[in-house]
């Protein structure tokens, strides 16, 4: 086909017209901030329903929808109903960014609830910062972040480990073997763990990272046998959790002498690996499904009624649930029918809510949440027996391991020493 100038001009014009039509916000002057109007509050729900992390993110989606339905049934917020816009980013950070842009710019949501992996949160961050929107992130993470466009309702390392590591040292001993998946979350958690151990006179006999999804732990277990740690501090995630626990037990190791202490093993992973492989190991988290409080019983009952009798709630789906209520309280406080995401952020500070785990509060200092850490021992039944719980809520300090930095309402501040 000979390509002449006329064909070229026609083709370019066609492509240009097509893109202008399909991406109208490119040339629309009114790229105004999202705001609520017309008696309904649009919010985005951005959890993967397909892909590798769908296993856990589906439960986050379900917890969010449950909360929205409960709030709407009770009359909505200031008489306005919440309208969820649900997107499936398919466990791919690039798709997360694309869907986030659609929710913020196209659907004009006033807030978006989403993300499980840190990779997906980092991918959507630029969208929320550029359009000054608000992202509610429910998952426990490594800290070290201080965005003015995110509200963090998951635990940060100081909350996970402040009571856990001393308890482990006291009950089992000072030699720790650190094993994690090879990405930022385990590395930051191990960083905090090492600092705590040093203060307690503990010793790190091994530190190692396996590829994500790795399932062959024969060599690692041999190293456990050789170095004989008192505690195996595990931050592996996903499939690796199941494989590690099963191979640990198959190799004849004893959780009474060398327990695995994890920040990531939840009721979901125990269901996948089988109760007898999980029994005797420990997890630190602000929430366990077995926690005995009236709010939690109500939550579990409602969740199972809505989504199925055999479903479990876990320490990621519980924050996904209560963060919607905190959102509701923040918007109620504004009392108007038009409001912007930055206004919601300010209104959310110091909001308290009786969550299934206890009374939680959003910190006005760093937009993270005061939580109640607990230590659970896994049982063969698949549930956790809560051995220790925090007597009061623990303040979130996302930069605890970095004394020169502090998160303030205006962003990260480097302290001049």
């Amino acid at each position, binding site marked *: 086909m000979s390509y002449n100038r006329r064909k070229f001009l026609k083709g370019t014009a066609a492509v240009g017209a097509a893109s202008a039509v399909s991406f109208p916000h490119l040339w629309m002057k009114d790229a105004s901030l999202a705001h609520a109007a017309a008696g309904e509050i649009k919010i985005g729900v951005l959890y993967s329903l397909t892909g590798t992390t769908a296993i856990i993110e589906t439960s986050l989606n379900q917890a969010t929808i449950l909360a929205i339905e409960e709030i709407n049934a009770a009359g909505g917020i200031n008489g306005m109903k919440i309208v969820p816009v649900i997107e499936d980013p398919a466990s791919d950070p690039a798709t997360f960014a694309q869907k986030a842009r659609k929710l913020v710019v196209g659907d004009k949501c006033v807030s978006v609830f989403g993300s499980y992996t840190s990779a997906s949160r980092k991918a959507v961050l630029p969208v929320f910062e550029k359009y000054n929107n608000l992202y509610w992130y429910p998952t426990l993470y490594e800290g070290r972040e201080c965005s003015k466009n995110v509200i963090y309702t998951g635990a940060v390392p100081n909350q996970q480990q402040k009571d856990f590591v001393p308890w482990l040292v006291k009950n089992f001993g000072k030699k720790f073997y650190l094993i994690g998946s090879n990405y930022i979350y385990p590395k930051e958690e191990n960083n905090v763990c090492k600092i705590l151990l040093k203060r307690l006179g503990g010793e790190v006999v091994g530190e190692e990272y*396996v590829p994500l999804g790795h399932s*062959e732990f024969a*060599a*690692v277990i041999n190293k456990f046998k050789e170095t004989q740690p008192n505690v195996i501090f595990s931050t592996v995630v996903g499939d690796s959790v199941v494989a590690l626990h099963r*191979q640990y037990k*198959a190799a004849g190791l004893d959780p009474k002498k060398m327990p695995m202490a994890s920040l990531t093993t939840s009721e979901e992973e125990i269901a996948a690996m089988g109760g007898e492989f999980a029994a005797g190991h420990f997890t630190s988290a602000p929430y366990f499904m077995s926690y005995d409080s009236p709010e939690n019983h109500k939550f579990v009952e409602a969740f199972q009624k809505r989504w199925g009798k055999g479903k479990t709630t876990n320490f990621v789906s519980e924050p996904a649930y209560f963060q919607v209520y905190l959102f509701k309280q923040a918007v109620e406080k504004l009392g108007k029918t038009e409001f912007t995401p930055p206004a919601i952020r300010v209104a959310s500070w110091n909001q308290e809510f009786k969550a299934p785990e206890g009374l939680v509060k959003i910190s006005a200092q760093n937009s993270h949440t005061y939580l109640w850490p607990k230590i659970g021992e896994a049982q063969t039944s698949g549930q956790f027996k809560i051995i220790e719980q925090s007597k009061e809520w623990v303040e979130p300090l996302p930069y605890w391991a970095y004394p020169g930095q502090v998160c303030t309402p205006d962003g990260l501040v480097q302290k001049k020493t």
Partner: protein
Amino acid sequence: MSVIIPQLSVGLSIASILLIVALGLAIIYGTMGVINLAHGEFVMLGAYAVWFLQTYLGIGLIACLLLVFAFVGGVGWLVERLLIRHLYKRPLDTILATWGVGVILQQTIRLSVGPELRYVKMPDFLTSSVHFFGYEESAYRIFIFVLAVALVLITYFLFFRTEFGLRLRAVTQNPEIARCFGINAGLTYSLTFAYGAGLAGIAGSLVSPLKSVSPDMGTPYVVDAFLVVVVGGVQSLLGTVASSYLIGQVSGVLAFISNDTMAKALVFFGVVVLIRLFPRGLFAMRVRRS
């Protein structure tokens, strides 16, 4: 001595898992020249078949093995009959086609069964550990090792001591001449593909109690299987055995010295160097290909 036994044990264990996964692929690639990228998904199907039989019909793992072999072999048969047989003259297209089959199988399982990790129970008599030479090894891993050896022996017997094996070897060397001798090449190919798929299914069911069962568990296995086949040399059973042992033992030792991430990287690097020096694998057969 105290270091060698554990290392040997780890190496043999990793090697036996590699071997049972790679054996099916080696057969399919070696005899038919088909690059079956759906091999990992056949492994995954085997794991799900065992989960299903265990959870809904209460059949134990060992009793399941033959059923799983038949089921995944049947799936392999269908794939060969409907798709692969049209692509024998187009090896590059088989890559795309089998990759597509793999994706379809993965998503079918995900949509029908769900993406959650599934639980397969180990047989009770194998859950303990066995002591030997002052070292404790999981009984189940020993079981896998024994089964790997058994499967290799069965395959050897099938290929070199039966009529079917004779026909298969004839068809592998030269399909046209074999047809002139009255051998039904199409049927032979279908049966071979089904056998390779069935082996993958058995591998999946054996691996599932030790690791986890999820729709995307297959992909790492097909990568490892290809490493084994490429290093060992096409069409060589001995090559497959030797290279799975080599890769397994080296992985185990490197993982012990440093860590698993480094081990994986170094193994890949080693394989690349090995292929540069021995382009046709360690045990390449000298065959005149028409």
